[in-house]
């Protein structure tokens, strides 16, 4: 990393503190990127499709969450001011929104990508771009062109005590407390269950998997459902954490998540998590030590550098093209 420019003026002990603060923010943001990246990587692992529409499924999920919060207050008299109700409400959102995103993702796969399974790779890729445009337009008509404020429901109380020099709030904790268990559960699911095994088999060789009696279509559907659900969960957390939603957010976040997936080695689940964390850290440390306006460029410079030296990503194994 470039030498600390801004912190140079501050003494060393607080220099460390600042560094830790950036790292905390970076890891929290990174956990969010990772959650979206998982959806990219799982779909890619199975059908080798860069699903450009994934970020927009995520965007629609956060619009749904925003609409639900309003509707629950209006029609159910939900009191979003009371801690218990907030907890329960967020729990509800974390069920409904992922279900919606999973259903949306599966529908997209069935209607758009499935007929193209045998076509060369560019055809589904361009379709995915097309789906992304359509979903973005739906978001535009649904939420309007301007940024929308997402209610700030989670407390900003520090979990480290009010006097602590580091700031780590309940809100930050929420992100970690929801994303980490989801990632662990996903890993266990893919490693241990029958369906998870079928997914791995299909990713390795779909033809052989089919010959072994695996229903490849069902496995692909399940992968899209799972990826969509992860995006839905990420959408709820994103809304609660960043507090702004807009119809363009899917594109930007999708880009980062996709980068994270590639960085870690696309198709590789721990790789996507690692990639997300690296990008989160690169952004926050870049903002702190290089300059805010260079952060996005820095993410991509790191990406290019890593791919030049490790052409299959951080955790990807080097495979030769099959002949």
């Amino acid at each position, binding site marked *: 990393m470039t030498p600390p420019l801004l912190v140079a003026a501050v003494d060393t002990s607080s220099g460390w503190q600042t560094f830790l603060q950036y790292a905390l923010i970076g890891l929290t943001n990174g956990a969010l990127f990772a959650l979206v990246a998982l959806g990219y990587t799982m779909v*890619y692992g199975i*059908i*080798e499709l*860069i699903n450009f529409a994934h970020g927009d499924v995520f965007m629609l999920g956060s619009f749904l969450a925003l609409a639900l919060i309003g509707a629950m207050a209006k029609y159910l008299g939900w009191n979003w001011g009371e801690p218990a109700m907030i907890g329960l409400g967020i729990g509800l959102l974390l069920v409904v929104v992922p279900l919606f995103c999973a259903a949306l993702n599966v529908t997209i796969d069935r209607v*758009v990508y499935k*007929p*193209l*399974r*045998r*076509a*060369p*790779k*560019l*055809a*589904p*890729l*361009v*379709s995915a*771009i*097309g*789906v*992304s*445009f*359509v*979903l*973005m*337009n*739906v978001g*535009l*008509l649904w939420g*309007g062109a301007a940024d929308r404020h997402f209610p700030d429901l989670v407390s900003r109380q520090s979990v480290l005590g009010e006097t602590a020099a580091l700031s780590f709030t309940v809100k930050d904790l929420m992100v970690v407390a929801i994303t980490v268990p989801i990632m662990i559960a996903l890993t266990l699911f893919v490693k241990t269950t029958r369906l998870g095994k079928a997914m791995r088999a299909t990713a390795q060789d*779909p*033809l052989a998997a*089919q010959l072994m009696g695996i229903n*490849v279509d069902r496995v692909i559907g399940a992968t899209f459902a799972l990826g969509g659900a992860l995006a839905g969960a990420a959408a709820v957390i994103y809304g609660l954490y960043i507090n702004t939603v807009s119809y363009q957010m899917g594109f930007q976040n999708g*880009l980062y998540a*996709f*980068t994270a997936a*590639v960085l870690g080695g*696309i198709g590789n689940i721990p790789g996507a998590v690692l990639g997300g964390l690296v990008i989160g850290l690169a952004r926050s440390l870049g903002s702190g030590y290089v300059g805010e*306006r*260079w952060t*996005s*460029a820095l993410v*991509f*410079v790191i*990406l*290019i550098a890593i*791919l*030049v030296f490790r*052409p*299959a*990503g951080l955790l990807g194994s080097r495979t030769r*093209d*099959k*002949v």
Partner: protein
Amino acid sequence: MSPASRKRPPVELLYLAVLLAYPLLVYPEDALFRLTEISIGMQLTYIFIYAILALGLNVVVGFTGLLHLGIAAFFGIGAYITGILTVPAYPFQLGFLAALALSTAGAALLGVLLGAPTLRLRGDYLAIVTLGFGEVTRFTLRNLEEITAGTRGLNPVPAPSLPVAMTVPLHWLGIEPDWSLDYRLFYYLALGLLLLVVVLLRNLEHSRLGRAWVAIREDELAATCMGINAARVKLSAFALGCGLAGMAGCLYATTLTSTAGPDAFDFNRSIIMLCCIILGGLGSVRGTLLGVFLLIGFDNVVAPILDGLIQGADINPSGNPLLTFSNWKLMIFGLALILMMRFRPEGLIPSVQIEAEMTKDLPGPRGIRAEAR
């Protein structure tokens, strides 16, 4: 192209004749302007420029099969090189031809610098590297304010100087010798350059190099076994594609009299160009031209006309966003792409080889051929 059709006069010449005659006839342009309030001639100029850009991209993606998601960056690099070399704020103040040559060469050189270490990456990894490079370029243009003037863009980019010998024939054709007052000067400049590029690519396509590109696209391993130096062939395609993008960028900046802002060269532009060549037919020069004509024409001509009609009909006095055509543009665009891929994935005018591949029923859930590409 079948041998029989090669002997008959190619139909393209008829289109070319229409394009050449259109501005000189004056009446059609005036009539269209009166009906639509849009200068079709001026929009055609932009379409020619984008066509050069798309043809460059087609060399990389269509001929050679390398997925390039950052072509807009090279378009922007061409525009900014032109800006730096010509605007009054810099001491160079070169003429148009010098700027054109240097923009093309500069973009090609950067393409080689990016390509040399990364072209060995597998398909999708290369795609993300080019995408990343595109974003890095955009931010660099934005942030290196001392050089690029940030988001303000470099301006004014001067118009090309007309040779004195041209004034008489121009007068004879009824064209005013002022680039900003008469669109036809840029129109013919862009059309001329586009023609040059088309002829160049047509010749390259059937040359040794062109066949090597296609061989790499079809099967890199087999091509290497046949003695093709894959790295060098890929790099040449990359250099040519990026160079053409730079050339289009130079033309773009000169026509707009400004480099515009860095955001004019974002990922969106790359994606639209990619959609143009896929819609038209990958690897096919005629297809690329048609794709650009349809997609850019839709965005720049059809959409404003429809918006104007809706405004004029006054059916939307309250400004309801659902009744504004432009609010549905992305949807229409997206649906067109999806339907196209579903029913005609080889594009409207496909290249012969790609059509054969795309219509062949491939075995297995993913297909062995898909794997190799």
